[in-house]
């Protein structure tokens, strides 16, 4: 398990507390934002390895937040997993079009969330390693 830094954005305090606690138990370093704007501000100030982004939020919803985020960060630089209570195909497609890496349905099934987070983190690390190797011209040991 990594010590990856995860940012969660959810306007519901209860969900923030539950998700934060669960992810910390899994060994992640977790920061929580109460909305899209706050999440973007935090991302400007500190590095994160992954964003778990709630779709339905009052100040700036998850879709808009994702759209703005992708103007600055690629899907490899900052993987985003959308959390949505809405399982309409239309919304899922839109999220992927805007640059979401993956999505989980609410209520969150935590084992599924852990697996999806790890998949994204592994992919991010592997891609970054590949980029680094490509730039340096030779693979690093380990």
């Amino acid at each position, binding site marked *: 398990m990594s010590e990856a830094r995860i940012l969660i954005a959810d306007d519901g305090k209860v969900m923030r507390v*539950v998700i934060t606690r669960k992810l910390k138990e899994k060994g992640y370093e977790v920061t929580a934002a109460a909305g899209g704007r706050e999440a973007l501000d935090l991302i400007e100030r500190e590095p994160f390895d992954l964003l778990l982004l709630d779709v339905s939020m009052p100040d700036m919803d998850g879709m808009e937040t994702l759209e703005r985020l992708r103007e600055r960060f690629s899907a490899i630089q900052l993987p985003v997993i959308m959390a949505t209570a809405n399982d309409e195909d239309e919304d899922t497609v839109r999220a992927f079009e805007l640059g979401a890496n993956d999505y989980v349905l609410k*209520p969150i099934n935590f084992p599924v969330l852990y697996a999806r987070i790890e998949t994204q983190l592994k992919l991010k690390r592997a891609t970054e390693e590949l980029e680094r190797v490509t730039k340096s011209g030779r693979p690093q040991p380990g």
Partner: protein
Amino acid sequence: MSERYEIKEQIGRGGLGVVYRAFDAHLNRDVAIKKVLVDSGEPLEELTANLVIEAKTLSALKHPHIVTVHDVGQDEDGPYIVMELLEGETLDSIMKPGVMAVDDFEEFAVQTLEGLVAAHSVGLLHRDLKPANLMIVWLPSGKFQVKILDFGLAKFSRKPTAQTVDHKDSLLGSIFFMAPEQFERSPLDARTDLYSIGAIFYYALTGQYPFEGESAVEVMNAHLEHRFTPLAEVRPKVPDPVCAWVERLMARKMEDRPASAQDALDTWNPKPVIDEAQLREAASGDPELAAELLTGFREEAEGLIEKMNRELESGETDAAAETARTIRGTASTLGYTEIISIASEIEEHAKSDPERCRGLSDKFSSALARLADAVARLSWND
């Protein structure tokens, strides 16, 4: 009787008779036999008539929470009733070491009322409900079964009837559990039994009689003046809705009580329905965090319900459904199944039937109002 039933030992004594353990040689089983007290000073004819009534009314009832009557007969000593032999303890015996746990109380209350519903549905009143007339039978599974005993004073009564008085002009029944109308010799009905049941429930939860006094007159006056210490003061840990429900059963005026035992059962919903395993999972097994989450959820949900109501009012049904979905999402994480079911219904009907959803919104609010009791019940550390 001696040919078929072999008396073994006396196991109880009530106002109208003595109960024996006996062996039924025909069916090869132990039974309970209630015989009249022939030396009680009462005219034998009246006692016989009372027992026959008891037997007939009881044999008409086959219910898991009412003692079953197998047979009735008469021998040289007088009439007798053969009943199922219950291996249990009466409530008053069980209560001696303390008070009933709230979770056990829920089961106890529901079973007792189910028995009363059955009896009342055929027009029977008990009129003498008291802890000694409620038998608790322990089942092999570890659960218990309530059996209502001694419908000895019951009579067919589809309409309110006049108070029954014995020859010494003393009121029948146990004074601590008698309804005011029984002292006032007013007409009785099913709500009279509900008063007694309410007083029994109070006793079960607190270990003390609600209406007390140094003498019978003082006890009677306590009933008539409705003087009792609120249940919540005697046992603060009992959830408020349970206290209110019990106190409503023993309301001074009959019209302030539930209309029937079924009505009492229908209003028995003292705690929100929460999947504790799910809540425990969400809170990582920490009762303090679980309490914090439930309290937080209540605050959040109240705001969301207001929002949803505004959306329903303004015809924004998609938005209302979305808000209900948000509530359901968090409720699902916490295992709050009652809210999940209400939210799902709103999601489904927001568009087609907003009026119905506004009604459901009230259910949301009342479920949330009971959350404090769910929080009070969290005791995983115990």
